[in-house]
């Protein structure tokens, strides 16, 4: 019962959901809307299907190497020298994800509630609970994710308020922006779905009924995609598309406009809930960064690695002063992220076929 380092498929499901829904959800409708206009939800769905295919690839990889962590697979397929290099690249990748999400978090907080509070204070408040959680083992992490997931229905309920006065006409004409625009919209949509790589890393910890449980968890992306599609449609039936493009955080603006008898500014409540969910996503990446470091140094202690990763990313997040340089880093990260989430796993899989590694098929 107290077995360390073993999670169920359901827990993996929520880990992935909570990793995917992060800082991005507030700006995501605008980002996609800029390109795909009123058909942003179609782009999101297509992106969801793409990601689902990548997740299937992960599932295949995981069942081929049931006893290895992802880095174990990489080492087996690429050899230990290349393996180390790739691991190092992953460390850089995760650390920059940490930096980017910290900065994104700060930007929203600074532009919405705390205009004057220094950056280091807000980031510190963000980092402390993250470290407190991420230094624990994966079982506790999974429990945390599961508990936090009870906040998602709350977001859903608050958003549903829009449907008292929806303008479905704003969604028309369906497909009117053309195939080109819709396909281009897939790119920012996939970035909004980033975090699905958690499947690859946390899938290792699913040990009981591995195949069945892994299959269960694969629906996490579908769940997140449908949540995002819902969010996009909600923003679009509220804002006309021309408005939506100007508004940076459409979800928050919707909340600000809605009025309740008990509370006036529901957006502040929404932002508070979002904060916890963003923190939860950040915790996953912090855990992964520490985990990667741990395996990179073979015998690293997890707690120490968490401290190292948070210190590096905290300092790095404080360094860039201008927003434009941060945006540049974000765009670089986004365009390289597909290398880490799709390309390297795919090459690993191909190499494992070419080198004919004895992949065990588990039957339990």
């Amino acid at each position, binding site marked *: 019962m107290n077995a360390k380092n073993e999670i169920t498929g359901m827990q993996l499901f929520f880990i992935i959901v909570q990793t995917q829904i992060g800082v991005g959800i507030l700006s995501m409708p605008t980002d996609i809307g800029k390109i795909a206009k009123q058909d942003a939800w179609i782009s999101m769905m297509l992106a969801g299907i793409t990601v689902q295919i990548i997740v299937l690839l992960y599932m295949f990889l995981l069942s081929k190497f049931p006893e290895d962590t992802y880095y174990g697979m990489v080492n087996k397929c690429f050899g230990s020298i290349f393996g180390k290099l790739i691991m190092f690249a992953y460390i850089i990748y995760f650390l920059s994800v940490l930096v980017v999400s910290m900065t994104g978090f700060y930007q929203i907080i600074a532009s919405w*509630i705390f205009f004057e509070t220094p950056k280091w204070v807000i980031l510190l408040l963000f980092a402390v609970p993250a470290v407190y959680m991420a230094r624990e083992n994966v079982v506790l992490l999974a429990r945390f994710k599961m508990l*936090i997931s009870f906040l998602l229905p709350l977001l859903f309920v608050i958003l549903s308020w829009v449907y008292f006065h929806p303008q479905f006409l704003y969604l028309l004409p369906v497909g009117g922006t053309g195939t080109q625009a819709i396909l281009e919209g897939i790119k920012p949509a996939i970035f909004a779905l980033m975090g699905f790589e958690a499947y690859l890393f946390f899938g290792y910890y699913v040990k009981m009924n591995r195949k069945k449980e892994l299959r269960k968890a694969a629906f996490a992306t579908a769940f997140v995609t449908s949540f995002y599609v819902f969010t996009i449609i909600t923003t679009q039936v509220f804002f006309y598309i021309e408005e939506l493009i100007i508004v940076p955080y459409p979800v928050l603006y919707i909340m600000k406009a809605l009025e309740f008898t008990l509370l006036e500014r529901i957006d502040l409540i929404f932002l508070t809930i979002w904060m*916890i969910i963003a923190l939860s996503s950040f915790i996953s990446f912090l855990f992964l960064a520490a985990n990667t470091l741990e395996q990179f140094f073979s015998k690293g202690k997890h707690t120490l690695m968490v401290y190292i990763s948070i210190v590096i990313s905290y300092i790095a997040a404080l360094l860039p002063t201008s927003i434009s340089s941060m945006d540049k880093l974000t765009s670089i990260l986004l365009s390289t992220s597909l290398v880490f989430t799709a390309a390297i796993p795919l090459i690993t899989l191909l190499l494992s076929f070419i080198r004919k590694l004895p992949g065990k098929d588990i039957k339990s």
Partner: protein
Amino acid sequence: MEKDNKTNTHNPDKKVCEFDSLDDLFSDVSFFLGNTQDFIRRSISYDDGEAVCMYIQNLLNSNKLEQAIEWFQRSMWAVGDVTHTVNFKYVSETETINDIGLRIIKAEALLWAKKDGKWLGVSIECPVEHYRAIEEPKNEQIVRGSHAGFNESLFTNIHQVRTKLRTKHLVVRYLTIGKESNTSCVIMYLDNVANQMNVEEYIMRVQAIESDMAFSIGYMEEFIEDDSWSPFPQFLNTERPDRVVANLSEGRIALMMEGSPTALLAPVNFFSFYQSPDDFNGRFLVGSFYRLLRLGSFLIALLLPALYIAIISFHFEIIPNDLSLPAKRAVEGIPYVPLLEALVLELTIELIREAGIRLPNPIGQTIGIVGGLVIGDAVVNAGLISNLMIIVVALTAISSFVVPSVEMNTTVRILRFPFMVLASMFGLFGIAIGATLLTIHLIKLESLRSPYLSPLAPFHWKGAKDLFVRLPSWKQNTRSADASPINKKRQGNSRWWTHEREK
């Protein structure tokens, strides 16, 4: 030579059969007990000769002892032997001074006689029983149901549990803690439900206690709890036999101690602190309603002052239009920041509470009235504190007393201070960070190696039947998983006749 002899006489490992005379034996035992003056020697003559009865005066009931000695004399005269009875036991002559001393400390009277060159030892048990009557515990009163409570006698406490659970599966294990006080403790569990791993763990922890004395069960709790730095209690304290029995049948384990009317139950989860026997005595709708109310009171007691501070000092715009003017009027002209207002008032309430506990009842009420009404009214009139703040603090205080467990109650009252500070610094953001930290802490916390937030994290559907709401008793056919019982099934279908009637 003489020196050697002396050390020899006071050797605590010397056996009784090595002594020559009754006087030597008595003086050695007396020396072992530090020549204490309440150690009594009574010489008794019986049929065959002389015997000596030794005991500690204050531990024994002298009437009963007198009867027992009479019985001894008579049976020695008639039969030349004594039979074993409940109170009479033969003591082997190979026992050492050490053993004898311990027996005497544990309220036995020892009769020693020398017969045909052999030692005859009899132990007589007749302890004094000066205990409180069985009455309802003052801090856990309920409306309906049993009004019995534990008292300070371990004997009657076990009796109360036994009479409620007449099963062969109820196991009572005696342990002794306290190197000097030698307090006897019991661990009780149902061996067909409780997980043996938990039982072993509990016993191991109790046995590991290296304390010289066992002051009370609350004192022992600190030795055995999982995380002493946590503000949350990890063992459930209760003085109610019905609560203990209900928990035992869930697979939990109870520790009781001589001299404490409290049972220490583990492994428990957060939600067991919010259950009261009243939930189960009433019907399920009512029980569920009050359960929800109590859990809501947890949030109110924890967060309401913090939310108030956050809203007044950071997010005034969150107040709806119609309320904003009255709110502004109330807050205006108050010279202090909301945090200070809240702290002063909260601390005043804590003062009133602390003062009220120690004072006799009539004065305690007066303190409540003076503290609550007079200070509350005067402080608003003087313009020191806004009347909204009074409402908030009063509501918080009431909510914090709703918890049916004293320890959880104090936890909640202490925890709201950090939340207030966080709220005054970072508003809602600070509260969210505090709440996250608290959640993470609760997730990490364990009670006897079982997760503290059990039916919620890790999540079990089946455990949720008795979580926020209480489903009807006949629906709760499985035991909750947090105590990891070995036998999950609690009961079968008791209401098969509902279908029977339809036929």
